[in-house]
């Protein structure tokens, strides 16, 4: 691929730079507006951030978002790992018919392919009826969490499945020959092998939870305003404000910071892995 004509390479660069610009310009604009609230009064200040730090509603929303993301991701990773493990380990290569092949795949793909609006409204109706007839599951962080686990688990399953699919089946035979039972080989063989996928899946689950608005919006109750729902409400009420810009900037900064940290850590781990392998 090195002998792609120089003209084509420059052309690709010429088109791609504006695309990168397009990707970051809107985010940069929010960041600028958060420090320079008004075009008419030039000058930078951090007043918007001061407002945030003293706004109990915002702080409560951040706390709820974090609790929701961490708790749902923990359960979603557990269920997802078991699904990915079960499908990769106990399904014959040739699909295995309806009960072993088609049905589990369909169920796992359902949350992924279903438009999130339909997802959210379905759950809203379900929780509504459950609450009406049993008094349980009133709309709040719990119902949001249940919904989040439902869309996190399949993604984690895919990540874990991809990791295990490349694994030599003979390893399981070997552990069986060494008298490990199912549980032991799961704990001492599967878990160590999927650990990177487990961590990756957990982080993915957190990202999915924090990224979601639509499903959260329809499963939330009056007492469970998380950060995205709070922002949406503020936008609907005010259009724009320095405070929203400041929250947005903090969210963007967090994501970029975490991504860079993750990248640096995995790169170092990769290097350590390489040296120890060599």
């Amino acid at each position, binding site marked *: 691929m090195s002998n792609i004509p120089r003209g084509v390479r420059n052309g690709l660069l010429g088109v791609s730079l504006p695309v990168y610009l397009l990707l970051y310009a809107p985010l940069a604009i929010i960041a600028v507006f958060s420090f320079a609230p008004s075009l008419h009064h030039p000058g930078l200040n951090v007043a918007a951030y001061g407002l945030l730090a003293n706004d109990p509603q915002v702080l409560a929303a951040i706390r709820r978002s974090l609790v929701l993301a961490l708790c749902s991701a923990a359960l979603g990773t557990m269920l997802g790992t078991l699904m990915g*493990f079960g499908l990769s380990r*106990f399904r014959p290569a040739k699909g295995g018919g309806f009960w072993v092949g088609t049905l589990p795949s369909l169920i796992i793909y359902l949350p992924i392919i279903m*438009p*999130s609006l*339909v*997802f959210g409204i379905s759950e*809203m109706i379900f929780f509504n009826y459950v609450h009406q007839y049993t008094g349980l599951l009133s709309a709040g962080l719990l119902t949001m969490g249940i919904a989040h686990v439902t869309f996190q688990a399949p993604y984690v399953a895919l990540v874990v499945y991809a990791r295990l699919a490349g694994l030599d089946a003979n390893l399981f035979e070997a552990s069986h020959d060494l008298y490990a039972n199912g549980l032991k080989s799961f704990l001492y063989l599967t878990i160590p092998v999927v650990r990177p996928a487990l961590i990756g899946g957990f982080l993915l689950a957190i990202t999915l939870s924090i*990224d979601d608005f639509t499903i959260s919006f329809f499963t939330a109750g009056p007492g469970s305003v998380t950060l995205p729902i709070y922002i949406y409400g503020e936008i609907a009420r005010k259009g724009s404000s320095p405070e929203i810009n400041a929250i947005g900037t903090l969210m963007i900064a967090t994501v970029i910071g975490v991504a860079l940290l993750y990248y640096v850590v995995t790169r170092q781990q990769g290097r350590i892995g390489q040296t120890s392998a060599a």
Partner: protein
Amino acid sequence: MSGLTPAIKKPRVNAERLATALRLWIAAGPGLFWIILFLLIPSAMLLAIAFLTNSDFGSPVLPLSLGSFSEVAGYGILGWSGANFVTLARSLVQTGAATSMTILLAYPLVFFIITRPANLRPVLLLFAILPSWTNQVVRTYAWMQLLNPEAPLSHIAQKLGIIPEHLGLMPGDFAVLIGLTYNYLPYMVVPLYAAAEKLDWTLVEAGRDLYASGTKLFFNTVFPQTLPGLLSGIILVGIPAFGDYVVPQLLGGDRAMMLGSLIAGQFTFSPNWPYGAALTLIMLAFTCLGLVTFRRLTQRMGAGEGAML
């Protein structure tokens, strides 16, 4: 070895298969039942509601009817209106346009990334998908800031005569298209990158040796190899874009209504669950149609090895 005991082979295999199936359902069972209970059953309820009657309070009541579907087709108390068809058509056109935009942007971006040195590629890819890790509301709000009538971009467009003097670049169809493209671009970039990374460049060399050049070289050697990635990208972008709620809501306004806003309205401000559920059924029908079509195409390409389904 198995040839030595042909008599007992068959029943043992069956018992083994049953045991494997049982193990599968024991391991994957909790997750599968979670999805059945909290998504399959709820969505079945939603679809069932489409065939009920709307009560005065917006909740569905028993007499089974197809009333909600005639409402979907445009028959209301005020006579027939084509508004729903316009909304559906707009959703389809916007989905097609946004998907095309992501293809047009993703191809050069992906080939830019894979023609860089190997150690730079992960970073460049990361920076291409990083914005999608922020919340969708924040991303869409960012475009509200860029496109609103008081922002410089709108003033420039007004000066150039692209839009009338008193209007901004939002709310409207244009803003929705931008918002959808921006939100779903990474969903096109990732599968395309996965396909392009595995590209067999010897085919390109062979094509060049045969004096093919430029577009001919691209469409005969590169494009067919990236087609599986492109098709999964189209599914990954098209489905959520068609059902999107946030973007048309924040950037669209009333005159750029998409199916998502129409559906959500029936469950929020002016509840009419059966009507909303019937609209949902229409959305799902189009989603499935698109999914099945593109899966067929992908299977015909012989792609998707390593996928679970």
